[in-house]
Each structure stands twice: as structure tokens, then as C-alpha cells.
């Protein structure tokens, strides 16, 4: 097929490769030089890349001595070091000291907001607005106290958490087993009267005495509640488990009890402090 003789093709002025099939010859039109050099450069680059980075999973670890995962770990480490100045200050300062320092407070609040989004928003909501059974943290009603130290303690040790000795613990008896059904109705109406809800005045009057005997020890005679033992205030407009007759009487008969993890066992103290300041700054802190 080939006579290996190259020549200049008359029609095009281009050199032939010397290949000829039945008189049909092949013109020699090589790839552009720049293209070829780029191609060679890619081959060289690929060889270097395969040596430099871990190219064969499990077999080579790469001359660079690490993976992208390691790079992320290093980046996180560097980030933490970059923040260490502030983190150390927060670790050293008391909650009140942080609250008085504008810069520290700004740092702690935004750190707390981030930690809240990751750890707390699942139950309390992204805006800390709460849901039925999960307290709203924006308002001024606090089951366990709304001061910086109270909030810090609650976050640290959780609510009804068996892993922490200092956890917030209260348990209202199931009055469905103690009181007769009409008595529950009466005391429910009394509670609604305390909270300023529409109620049956006669039933409420009958319920007053039952309330004093059974409920006032914890919730207070006037329904003011007691944060010391986690007894919710009843004479306000906020109802954790709902503010109507059905829900209130249900809560009297068979109370639901919320729980919260002891975050001190999961997060470092600086994060718990930051969360405390964020929650306290939502507007309801006392």
C-alpha cells in the first residue's frame, strides 16, 4: 500500500504522508503544534498529579502526604486557632462580664446562634419560637428561670435528663388518678380563670378549694408558679401545652413532661456559654 515516498500534493500544496491506497494518498496535516504541546503538558501534569495526590485508593497516599479530608481537618484547626483569641476570652469571662462587653457579646451571640441552629432548632424552632410542648425562648416566661445563670444551668444539665445529676427535674402527679372527673373539670376552670381565659365561673369557684389543696404547693396560691421547682406560672397568657379546656384538663389528668439533653455532656463549656447569651438576648432574658 505504501511506497513511503512523501511528496508535495499539487492540488493543495500540502505534503503527503507517503501512504497510498489505490492511488488515493493521505495528506500530512498534523495537529497544531500548540495543541500537541498542551497534550504533552497534560500527560506530564497527570503523571505528577498521580504521584502528588493519592491516586489509587488504599494503595498510594500521595507525596503531598494527605487527603482532602485531612485538608479539611487542617482548615478547621486553623479556623479554630484564628478564633482562639475570642474563644479563650469567653472561656475565662463570667456570663455577666461577657454581656457587658460589646465585642465579646457580639462574638458569643453569633457563635450561639450557629450552635443553636445545629443543636437546638430541631425542637425549639429556627427562630427559637418553640412549638406545643417545646418552650418559646423569645418570651419572658421561664419554667426554670430566665437569668443568665438559670439558663446556663438548664442548658448544661438538661431537663429530666437521667445522665446528669444536676438536671432540672419536676414531676406533676397524674391527677386523673387522684381527683374525680368533675373535680378535674372544676380545677381546670379555676386554672383558666387564673390565666384570664373564658371559663365557667361556678365550676371555677368550686375548683378554687381543690386547687388550694392539690396545686398551690407548687404553682402558688395565685398561680404565680415557682421556677425553683419548675412549676409553670398559670396566671399568664402563655400555655406550653395549649390554652383551652381540653388541653388544660388533659394536662391535669395525665401531664406531659418535656425533656432536654444535658448539653454540658455534649458541647464544650464555651459553646454552652455562647448558647446561654444567645438565648438570653432573644428578648425574654431577665
Amino acid at each position: 500500500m505504501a511506497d513511503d515516498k512523501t511528496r508535495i500534493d499539487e492540488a493543495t500544496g500540502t505534503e503527503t504522508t507517503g501512504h497510498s491506497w489505490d492511488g488515493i494518498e493521505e495528506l500530512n496535516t498534523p495537529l497544531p503544534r500548540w495543541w500537541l504541546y498542551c497534550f504533552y503538558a497534560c500527560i506530564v501534569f497527570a503523571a505528577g498529579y498521580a504521584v502528588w495526590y493519592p491516586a489509587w485508593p488504599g494503595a498510594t497516599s500521595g507525596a503531598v502526604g494527605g487527603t482532602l479530608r485531612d485538608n479539611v481537618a487542617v482548615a478547621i484547626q486553623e479556623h479554630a486557632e484564628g478564633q482562639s483569641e475570642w474563644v479563650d476570652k469567653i472561656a475565662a469571662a463570667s456570663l455577666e462580664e461577657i454581656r457587658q462587653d460589646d465585642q465579646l457579646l457580639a462574638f458569643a451571640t453569633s457563635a450561639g446562634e450557629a450552635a443553636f441552629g445545629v443543636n437546638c432548632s430541631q425542637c425549639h424552632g429556627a427562630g427559637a419560637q418553640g412549638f406545643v410542648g417545646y418552650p418559646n425562648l423569645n418570651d419572658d416566661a421561664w419554667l426554670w428561670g430566665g437569668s443568665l445563670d438559670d439558663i446556663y444551668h438548664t442548658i448544661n444539665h438538661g431537663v429530666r435528663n437521667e445522665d446528669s445529676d444536676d438536671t432540672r427535674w419536676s414531676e406533676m402527679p397524674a391527677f386523673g388518678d387522684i381527683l374525680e372527673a368533675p373535680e378535674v373539670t372544676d380545677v381546670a376552670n379555676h386554672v383558666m380563670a387564673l390565666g384570664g381565659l373564658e371559663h365557667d365561673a361556678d365550676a371555677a369557684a368550686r375548683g378554687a378549694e381543690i386547687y388550694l389543696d392539690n396545686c398551690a404547693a407548687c404553682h402558688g396560691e395565685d398561680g404565680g408558679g415557682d421556677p425553683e421547682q419548675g412549676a409553670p406560672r398559670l396566671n399568664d397568657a402563655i400555655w406550653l401545652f395549649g390554652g383551652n379546656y381540653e388541653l388544660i384538663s388533659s394536662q391535669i389528668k395525665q401531664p406531659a413532661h418535656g425533656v432536654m439533653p444535658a448539653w454540658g455532656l455534649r458541647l464544650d463549656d464555651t459553646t454552652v456559654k455562647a448558647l446561654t447569651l444567645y438565648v438570653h438576648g432573644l428578648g425574654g432574658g431577665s
Partner: protein
Amino acid sequence: MTETSVPDEDGPLYSSRRKIHPKAVSGFFRRMKWQIMIVALAIYYLTPWIRWYRGEGQPDQAVLIDMANRRFYFFFIEIWPQEFYFVAGLLVMAGIGLFLVTSVVGRAWCGYFCPQTVWTDLFIHIERWVEGDRNAQIRLENAPWTAAKYRKRITKHGIWLMIAVLTGGAWVFYFADAPTLLRELLTLQAPFIAYASIAVLTFTTYALGGLMREQVCIYMCPWPRIQGAMLDENSLTVTYNDWRGEPRGKHRKSAAAASFGDCVDCNACVAVCPTGVDIREGQQIGCITCGLCIDACDKVMDKLDLAKGLISYSTLADYEASKAGAPQKSVMSAILKPRTAIYAVIWGGIGLAMIAALLVRDRLDASFEHVRNPPFIQLSDGSIRNGFDLKLSNMRLEPRMFEIALNGLPGAFMTRANSEAPPARDMRIQVPGNGTFEARVFVTIPGELAEDEGAFSFDVRDLSGTDAIAYDANFIAPE
């Protein structure tokens, strides 16, 4: 023609570059180019070093683009990010300014002011200073690689690189306090981005000014093409008056000399051209209208006792008139035309509007963004509270005390997160000069909100001045 970078129309699409060795020339346009170059380079290199006192704790650099703190300082003007339209306006003015200048004096930008022209010119002078003028350069180019050639080439590229480093170096001073950054740069403590910027600009200056030169104008820059579309018969261009010069001929004493025009075909106009074009071929994209060929030709005409202006700045209309023997129109005809007037009006209008905007612009900015999650909070006593994220910017350089007052919402009061101030219908906030204050402001209504009464405003005013803003907001309550 003998030496041109512009590919022939019938030639190959890609042709390798023919190196240009422009010959030194003196004259009116050369002097003008020198003056403009000195002024332009001085502005570029020295501006970051001008100091401008703005008060304690404020940057004292006259021109500073402070990325980290999001401010642009220009002498007595401070631009905040939300006022970026001033910068956009300047860019629009620069664009229309180019149109205006092109409409009046042709490609003056290309020939005298464009950084590519200025730096290339500078690099050409360095080259000439090291290697000698055109002929010496061509001889050196073709000479074998001797020690002397190495020495000259290394010296030339060394000086080019030095200028390139200084050019990149000057650039970064616009973005940080110049004396501090210089100290950091020299002690290797400057941020990586500063070194990277200098490296990139060193490379571009060296490559564009030293190696690529006229190729940037001919192949890379879109402006010559746009300008080409903007020129008309009344635009000033560098024109070879062929009706006077042709037929050209060298041998003035030959028999044919009687029919010759004024052009002696000495090639001086081609030799001095920094983009290597032959102006005698007519107006072309490679011509940046720097006028050096006019200087060169005028000298030759002087020697030959012929009238100057065989190559001249003139309009196509003048060229046609002269050719026909008619008197030329005045220079004003190139300037006074509707297009020029329209550009001038637009340009001046934007300029005046910006000055007016600058004089009346607010030096106080406040926003109260309603907290959307949750939109309202019921408090234990039944009152309703809304949260607003306040951002209060004091755009003057001195600290100021502002008063925020509720306008509307009878009975409502304000509190501030993490503040112990008692609830009130107004509050005072001190904001540092050139700074922003941020806080969450709570507005609480003790009772029920009457229907259609949610609209109110936060009235912010400067207690010591006249700046005031009323920010409209809406109170949200459960239905």
C-alpha cells in the same frame, strides 16, 4: 509594506509577529507624549502616598480602597458600599468621556493616555537607552549571541522587570495604608494577596509593555474596533496627504523626478511608528494616532525646504477639500457637531447629577428589618412584641448621638436586647464616626392592636445636626 504587524487582507489568518524597532524622533507630538507620560505615571505612582487627615482613628490616605472595612476614600469624599452608584457613575462618565474625546480628536486616548501606550512608550525608551536606536537594535537582533548581547539583553529585561514590579507594587498601595504596607512588603510580612497581586501585575506589565506591545492594540483590545465605528468624515485622524505626496520617489535627480510628489519615500514615518504601520496606506486599525510620523515627516520636509504637513492631523472632509484645492474647514468644524454636543450634554449631565447627589446625600443610614421568625411574640402578660434588627450607620467621620423615636402605635414602647435601659418611646444611641451600630430592637404593645393600626415609623434623627430618617415599619400581631 516593508514592516507591518497588521496581517494583509489576502494573507494568512495567523502570521508570526514581525518585531518592531521604532526609531527615536523629536518634535511637537513627541514632546506632548513625554509630558503626558510624566503626568500619567506620576499620578499613578504617587497618588497612594498623598496624605489627607480625617481625624483620630480614621485612615489618612487621600485615595484608599478599603476592602476589609468596605469604604472608598477619595480626598474629602467617603463612599460607603450602598453609595457605589457614585463609582458606577464615574465609570459611565469615563466611557462617555471616551466617546466624546474620540468624537472630537479621534483616537487621542490610544495615542497618548492609554496605559498600554504609556508603558509601552516607557519600555521602548528603556530599550533604546540600553541597546541604541533602531539600526543598532536591528543589528543586535541579528548578531550572534555574544557576551555583549547577553549583557545588553539582561540589562534591558532587568530594567523592564523592575518597572513592572514597581507598577504592580504601586497598585496594591491603593488598597491599604501605603507606608505600613511598604514596611510589611519589605519585611515579608504583607498578606499573601498583596504579593500575588504584585506578581500578576508584574507579569502583565512586563508581557504587555515589553513583549506584546502593539499586538495588544491590534489583536486584543476591543476599543480600536469600537472607535473605528465612531469615526466619521469630520473626525481628526493622522492623514497622509497622498494628493501631495504621490507618486513617491527616492531619486530626486532621476529623469522621472519631474512627475514625483513631495514624498521622497524615505520611510521615516514607518521607522518611527510604534505599531509598525505605514500611514501612507491610509487610516487603519493599527494606527493609534500618536502623531510621531508627523514629527518625523515634518523634519524631512524641513530639510527639503518643502511645506510641512505632508502627514498631518486632519479630517477626511479636510483631506477631500484640500485634494480638490478647496479651503479647509476650521478645526471647530471637527468639534462642533451634533454628536459631540450630545455626548457632551450626557457627560456633563451625569457629572452635574453626581455632584448634586454628592451634596445632598444622606450621611445617616438606618434600617429596621422586621424579625420574621417568629414574626411576633406573646408575652406572659398578654402583650405582643415585635423584633426589629436595627442597623444604624453614622456616615460622618465624627461620633454622633442619634435619637430613635416611635411614631404611631399609641401605647407601644421600645426596648433593646441586652440593654438595661427602661422601656420608652424613644432611645438614644451613640454611633462612632464612620461606623455602624447593630442591635435588636423590640417594640411591645401592651394591649390589643386595633385593626389597621399596625403601620408606624421609626423616626431617627441626629441630635446635634439635621440628618433625619423616618423608617416605615409594620407591627404584626396575631389575628
